[in-house]
């Protein structure tokens, strides 16, 4: 299978930065994958998304070294701050979501169909006639994801896409990701939400200081979940990761509580 994106020891620095934001990162993104990248603030997960999709350095400037191959025909990116990517030109949510496919020069019927599909997928068909400038933060976040999806990208990069969603909408968004991947697109996710990421990711990378420090099955890499943190703090012995079922099995049968 040909990788949609291949990074081979790629480093990247933002313009004027003293320190590279990505250092010697190697990663292949294959069709059908949902890759979750996690790390503390500043670890480089957002930058990884920008570099893997070609936005950096092309749009944001900076310097890239190493070998990067982007075979995907289209990459969609949803930034962590959704309102920054509204076109500001569209009076309705439907127009906003149709903007991407229209820019591709598709026939009008295809543009509208792509927009409707994306609105349906995000569960926001009821917002189609609303003014994007008057939506709540969570509604806006879904509109922006729908707009990226309407482009029918081969790689969809989502930066903390549920940060502003209520839990139901966040579950719905995450649960939709495997379906997108099954349709042949790869999803690249930067997220601090380890619980939801572990549920939907096919692979995870943990980052620190611009480097990938762990890579593999989500349940191996995403070990910093809340349950694990509590278990660790209470002196529960490894192995990690630890979910609630594993924690319960750890309790000695004669324990007093």
């Amino acid at each position: 299978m040909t990788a949609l994106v291949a990074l081979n020891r790629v480093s990247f620095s933002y313009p004027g930065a003293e320190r590279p934001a990505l250092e010697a990162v190697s990663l292949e993104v294959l069709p059908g994958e949902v890759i979750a990248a996690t790390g503390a603030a500043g670890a480089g997960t957002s930058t990884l998304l920008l570099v893997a999709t070609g936005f950096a350095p092309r749009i944001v400037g900076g310097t890239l070294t190493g070998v990067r191959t982007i075979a995907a025909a289209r990459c969609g990116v949803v930034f962590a701050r959704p309102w920054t990517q509204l076109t500001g030109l569209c009076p309705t949510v439907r127009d906003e979501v149709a903007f991407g496919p229209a820019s591709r020069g598709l026939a009008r019927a295809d543009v509208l169909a792509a927009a409707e599909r994306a609105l349906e997928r995000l569960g926001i068909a009821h917002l189609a006639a609303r003014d994007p400038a008057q939506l709540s933060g969570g509604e806006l976040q879904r509109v922006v994801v729908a707009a990226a999806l309407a482009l029918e990208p081969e790689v969809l990069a989502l930066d903390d896409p549920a940060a502003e969603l209520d839990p139901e909408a966040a579950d719905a968004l995450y649960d939709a990701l495997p379906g997108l991947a099954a349709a042949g697109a790869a999803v690249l996710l930067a997220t601090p939400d380890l619980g939801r990421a572990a549920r939907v990711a096919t692979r995870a990378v943990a980052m620190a200081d611009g480097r990938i420090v762990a890579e593999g099955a989500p349940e191996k890499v995403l070990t910093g979940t809340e349950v694990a943190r509590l278990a660790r703090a209470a002196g529960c012995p490894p192995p990690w990761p630890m979910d609630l079922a594993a924690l319960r099995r750890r309790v000695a049968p004669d324990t007093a509580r």
Partner: protein
Amino acid sequence: MNGVGARVEGVRYSYGAGEALRGVDLAVGAGEQVVLLGPNGAGKTTLTRLLVALRRPSAGRVTVGDWDVAGRRPDEMARRVGYAFQHADQQLFARSIEEDVAFGPRCLGRRRPAVGALLEELGLGARARLHPYDVPAPTRKLVALAGVLAMEPPLLVLDEPTAGLDHEQRDVVLAALRRRAAAGVTVLSVSHDLAFVAEAADRVVVMREGRIVADRRARELLYDREALAELGLRPPATVEVSVGLGLQGRPVRAHEVVAAMRGIRWREELSE
């Protein structure tokens, strides 16, 4: 520092055709720690903006302490109400983090505001001289919060204070809010984060479609699985662990759960 309470009575607000608030009554007492929960578009953010005069209700009355908000400008309200936006970038504009954080107290007439200790408290000390846009977005959220705390307002209104933060940053925010709470400051937050509710709320007010549909003690609601499910919510990990392990005393905060787990004997070997 003593907190002030806030009260909204019969408040309505419309964005064009859609009514965002359809008659809301809410009283937050001085020193209370309240979280507003509810699905996207429920009117939570709109409600909080009325408290700082960033929006004016089409009907009803809003008061903060003994001030009627109707007669006040947003800059006057800023003396009493510190408001941290959902999107931190909307409130950052200075050339360095320390200047940005010092802006509020300067506006209040303090010539040399001491922001150093505050930056340290929020883990920003080493970044004081950086441009706010040269730090990652989650860190900018802490900068915006520091700017609000620097004015030492008796009422804090925080829109999604932990969204997008990593564990360490969340802990920093929680510790800062606890210190303010202990000093009597009133905190009204909008959040979807039940772990935040567990750590930082006494009381939870649930909104839906422009109305208040529930008003509960946080501890009570977090253990009410049915009520949470009705709201489309799952209990936070602390409560899941407490229930899963049968811990005593209904702990909700992480340190309470860990303390309650101390009595447990762990198996060293796991037999399958």
